[in-house]
């Protein structure tokens, strides 16, 4: 009995924390079906008009398309550049590698607004404000650390002797990379790519500075809608993103466990 009370307390505490972590995420789902244009909770009435608004209003749907395109380009660019860097760092033992790794991770630490103001200043001078190049460059910077960390973690458990073995059997360096190294570090690369996509898709601070009325990303559109009025379309967007992510993660879990079972 003496042992059970602390365990019960711990369980209760964790339940409360879990609710506190998850509840704010789930609040947006009922909000998205609100009947009236208000953000009061619980919502009154039921309608699908906010979803309809999202898909038919070019302001909303256009920004989703922009965000998806930018995030795809960023995922490709950051994954290629970040994977190369992670491999380079892994092969440079000693201090130089650690130093470069630390440098490449700094974009995660620099305060968002300071970085955004600096990028905005440079983009004003180089006419990059509100351009595809501008978004992709800034988001790639922010995504590279995630790829370097994900691929680096994978490389740390990768047995480098396999490469030596392949080379000793006469494989060229390129063949070794594509047939030995790449398949083995693929999980790290894929999770890096996913992180890169999400980083770009979710980025708001830098985007707020370098946005233009013609080329707006989804988080910027959400932000400006939130500061303007109480529009439940925001909740509809949030619910859609939540459902899409749940679907992807759910499929990943099923796929992952099935592969482990096989």
């Amino acid at each position, binding site marked *: 009995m003496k042992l059970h009370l602390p365990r019960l307390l711990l369980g209760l505490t964790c339940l409360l924390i879990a609710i506190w972590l998850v509840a704010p*995420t789930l609040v*947006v789902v009922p909000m998205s079906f609100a009947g009236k244009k208000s953000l009061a909770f619980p919502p009154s009435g039921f309608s699908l008009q906010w979803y309809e608004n999202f898909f038919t209003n070019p302001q909303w749907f256009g920004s989703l398309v922009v965000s998806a395109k930018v995030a795809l380009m960023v995922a490709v660019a950051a994954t290629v550049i970040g994977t*190369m860097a992670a491999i380079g760092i892994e092969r440079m033992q000693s201090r*130089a590698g650690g130093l470069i790794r630390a440098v490449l991770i700094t974009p995660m630490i620099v305060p968002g607004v300071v970085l955004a103001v600096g990028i905005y200043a440079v983009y004003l001078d180089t006419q990059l404000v509100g351009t595809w190049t501008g978004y992709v460059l800034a988001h790639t910077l922010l995504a590279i650390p995630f790829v370097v960390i994900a691929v680096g973690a994978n490389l740390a458990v990768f047995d480098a002797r396999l490469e030596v073995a392949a080379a000793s059997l006469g494989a060229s360096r390129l063949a070794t990379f594509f047939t030995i190294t790449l398949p083995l570090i693929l999980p790290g690369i894929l999770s890096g790519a996913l992180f890169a996509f999400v980083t770009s898709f979710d980025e708001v601070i830098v985007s707020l500075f370098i946005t233009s009325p013609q080329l707006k990303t989804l988080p910027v559109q959400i932000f400006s809608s939130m500061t303007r009025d109480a529009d439940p379309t925001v909740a509809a967007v949030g619910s859609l993103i939540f459902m899409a992510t749940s679907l992807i993660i759910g499929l990943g879990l099923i796929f992952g466990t099935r592969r482990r079972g096989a």
Partner: protein
Amino acid sequence: MASDTARPPWRGPFLLTLPALAVLLLAMAVPLAVIVLRSFTDPEPGIGNYVWFFDTKVNLTVLARTFKISFWVTLCCVVVAYPYAFAMSVAGPRLRLLLILCVLVPFWVSGVVRTLAWVILLQDSGVINKGLVWLGFDKVKLIRTQLGVTIGMTQVLLPFMIMPLYAVMRGIDLRLLQAARSLGAHPVKTFFQIYLPLSLPGVFAGATIVFILALGFYITPLLLGGPQSTMLSTLIQQQVLSLLNWGRGGAMGVVLLLATFGFLAAASPFMRQKYRISGGSR
């Protein structure tokens, strides 16, 4: 074994990191250099912008508040994350997966939308206040207050505290606790003399990350806060976008940057301990 992989000269691997370093130079180093430069040259050369910053009461108030809110958020994160991470480290595989899932769910919706959820919950007629009234308490002003900002920021930053803590706690050998108990130590004493010191590297690592991220927070304080809870990031944005005063905004940015990296440098000796311990236990 390591020397086998180092067959290519040092330059080969360095070339692989060049594209990443180029992106860093173009999109981070140059912009930050421009900010530093402008803080000393705009509108006129000299340290005028810094003199202005430290001479204006509002700025110092906001700077102190930024540190204060970040401190409270970090403290709340430690207190909330500690039991949670502990439960994660001792739970069975299924329960652990569930607990990890709860940590990750907040990342499934966009950060801005998550803040929207807090606006809904914290508003004067929101669920929390309705619940308080229902329980017979008075309404508490949450939105546009520092309390509201702290609640929202703590929830957003909590995963950054839980994950490093969990990583360290997972490596703690629980048999040490059994050993202490079997030698007659009281559970409380066992916790404070054995478990807590072993978990401290995780606390330091998580607290450092949370504090640094909190210092630069922008969206949450902006949407949940009011004039009485403005943080430094908002002030920088106002100087640059509303007042077009690049020099003053730049000086504020440099102050925030120095505070962030200064704190990181001060905290890094404590974080390094983590690697020593985890390296030793392997």
